[in-house]
């Protein structure tokens, strides 16, 4: 390489490039929790080898387990919730902790039944704040038709300014005959999206220290189990192939996971993906890609072509799917890879973000 101490009076065009991260980390960095490549690597290279096999579909946030006694199958999931600030436009960490796990269970096609709750509270947390969060959890559970049945509370020394972590786990029952997963995805299947993307992530971002831009953005946090059952009812013959809630990593990450796990190509049309104006504007000036921004109440569905219209109509009849759209399709080519058709009609490869998205310099 050219030494940086050597003076050059001219350079060859093309000798410029942009550094990317170091891969080998001795310690956890924030990107390991970002839902991108670093998260996947942590699971693949650290947790899975240590835990042993047994999970069919490692990309899924919930597992479906047959009961030893036969009969119904259980869907089981757990998730921890950390968010700053804990209360934000349209909701709180309480809503998220309920809806997030409910949605992970729902994406298996299951009807969620019960959730456990575990709180790690930092000393200094205001009781009024905790009370508000607990009320939000109760209200969200009622709306999602799940019961909060058991729990635990611990207190730790303050790290931040009195925050908290909530872990919920829960299970639901998968109806007879319902079998969802990326391996059921076939070329020709259609990709549906339940509504506009990017609201949750940008609502949180708008409150972050130093940003605080003015916006009407609110979280889209919502329970999706009802929407899922409506969709399944509209295509009783197994026409719904796979479902994913587009949380961390956003819409794009979900498509990448589906393509990889299903070993199929996916192609979508950028212009057909609804991005609200204020989300597009906020992403524009921060240099973020709305397809990588987190949602808390949106799902991506892959459905058989012959039931697309029925499922789409069913989604639009449901309050949480009113703005559902068809955005793309499963293709034979480029297996494991997602390709977007750009606004001006070209194509580009869509990849998982490496770690968390960072606002760029200019």
């Amino acid at each position: 390489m050219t030494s940086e101490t050597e003076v050059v009076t001219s350079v060859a065009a093309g000798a410029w490039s942009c550094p990317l991260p170091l891969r080998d980390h001795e310690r956890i960095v924030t990107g390991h929790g970002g839902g991108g490549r670093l998260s996947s690597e942590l699971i693949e290279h650290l947790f899975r080898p240590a835990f042993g096999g047994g999970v069919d579909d490692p990309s899924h946030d919930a597992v479906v387990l047959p009961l030893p006694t036969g009969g119904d199958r259980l869907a089981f999931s757990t998730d921890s919730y950390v968010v700053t600030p804990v209360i934000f436009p349209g909701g709180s960490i309480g809503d998220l902790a309920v809806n997030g796990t409910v949605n992970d269970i729902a994406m298996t096609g299951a009807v969620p039944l019960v959730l456990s709750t575990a709180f790690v509270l930092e000393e200094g947390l205001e009781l009024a704040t905790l009370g508000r969060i607990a009320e939000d959890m109760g209200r969200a559970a009622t709306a999602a038709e799940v019961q909060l049945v058991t729990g635990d509370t611990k207190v730790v020394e303050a790290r931040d300014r009195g925050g908290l972590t909530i872990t919920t786990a829960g299970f639901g029952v998968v109806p007879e005959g319902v079998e969802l997963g990326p391996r059921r995805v076939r070329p020709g299947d259609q990709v549906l999206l339940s509504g506009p993307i990017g609201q949750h992530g940008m609502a949180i971002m708008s409150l972050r220290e130093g940003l605080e831009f003015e916006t009407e953005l609110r979280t889209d946090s919502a329970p999706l189990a009802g929407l899922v059952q409506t969709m399944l009812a509209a295509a009783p013959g197994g026409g719904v192939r796979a479902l994913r809630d587009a949380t961390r990593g956003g819409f794009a990450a979900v498509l990448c996971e589906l393509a990889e796990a299903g070993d199929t190509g996916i192609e979508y049309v950028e212009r057909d993906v609804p991005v609200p104006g204020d989300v597009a504007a906020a992403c524009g000036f921060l240099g973020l890609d709305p397809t990588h921004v987190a949602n808390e109440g949106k799902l991506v569905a892959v459905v058989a072509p012959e039931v697309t219209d029925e499922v789409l109509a069913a989604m639009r009849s449901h309050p949480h799917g009113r703005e559902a759209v068809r955005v793309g399709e499963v293709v034979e080519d480029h297996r494991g890879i997602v390709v977007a058709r750009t606004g001006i009609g070209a194509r580009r490869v869509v990849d998982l973000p490496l770690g968390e998205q960072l606002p760029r310099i200019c």
Partner: protein
Amino acid sequence: MKYLDEFNDPELARQQFEDIERIVTRPWALMEVCGGQTHSIVRNGIDQLLPEQVRLIHGPGCPVCVTPLETIDKALAIAARNDTIFCSFGDMLRVPGSHHDLFQIRSNGGDVRVVYSPLDAVRIAADNPDKEVVFFGIGFETTAPANAMTVVEAKRRGLTNFSMLVSHVLVPPAIAAIASSPDTQVNAYLAAGHVNVVMGTAEYEPLVARFDVPIVVTGFEPLDVLEGIRRALLQLEQGRAEVENAYPRAVQAGGNPAAQAVLADVFEVCDRPWRGIGVIPASGWRLSPRYREFDAEHRFEVQDLHVEESPLCRSGEVLQGLIKPNECEQFGTTCTPRKPLGATMVSSEGACAAYYQYRRLDVPEKVRA
């Protein structure tokens, strides 16, 4: 969305591509100077839809990329100090130094904070009088006015615990360096519009005269970039070489005089090393003597720096066309975009990274819509 959707219109884009197709009679190579334009071109697939005779060469305008390794290592050494709060724009946190990056400093207990405006660092300094607060001030002429104002503000408030690690770089000397190369292939330049918002267009006139190349001030949305390309090609085909403004909704010939006045007060021109390239004379800004007390390099004695680019890397040969990326022994094995040995594997626009990506993803190299 006002000013976003309008400049991403598929029908207008189609007309632009048709116009460009009509204009072009022979091969041309254009360089878009700015990384933001490269991003727009790659993300929207503009290069795929241009006539085959038109080649886009990606330019040096990514401040993150060209910040010298030694400066990154200095930043890492300062950020690791117990008495220091190190503030940076987010995307610098991932840039590898010789041994690690700012994320790793943070996970090892360093107080590294992402700020969204340099003025936030001044506020942090005021709130933490017992700590040294250092802001990583990098970028082209675009970010320089805000950084300059931050230093002015710190001085006004009499803050003694605030300093800035400055590694500013300038566009015109970089264009001059590329254009002076005897084997340069660039026929015309698309200048970085947001740099011209600050600096205006006058300093590009001598470049056009000296190198006889068109320079077209260009914006960032797809239609902006296409308009820049169209005007550059039109000049080339008509045998003209002029400074032209294809981004008039943002750029005025005189630039922003108020910003220029602050820049002239706070900064002075210096030689600057560019990562992967070498030192380009008079291509950077450092704090002027009037503000030296706020210069982090002046304030912190950073010693024992062992700057190390990989000795295995053959990117120099790749860049000179002596070998193809996949002829390097390290290609795809010890050297991947995730763990790059050298500059060309680091960015998706680098030759090695492009080879790696196409092989890995096995997607047709040119997909025509």
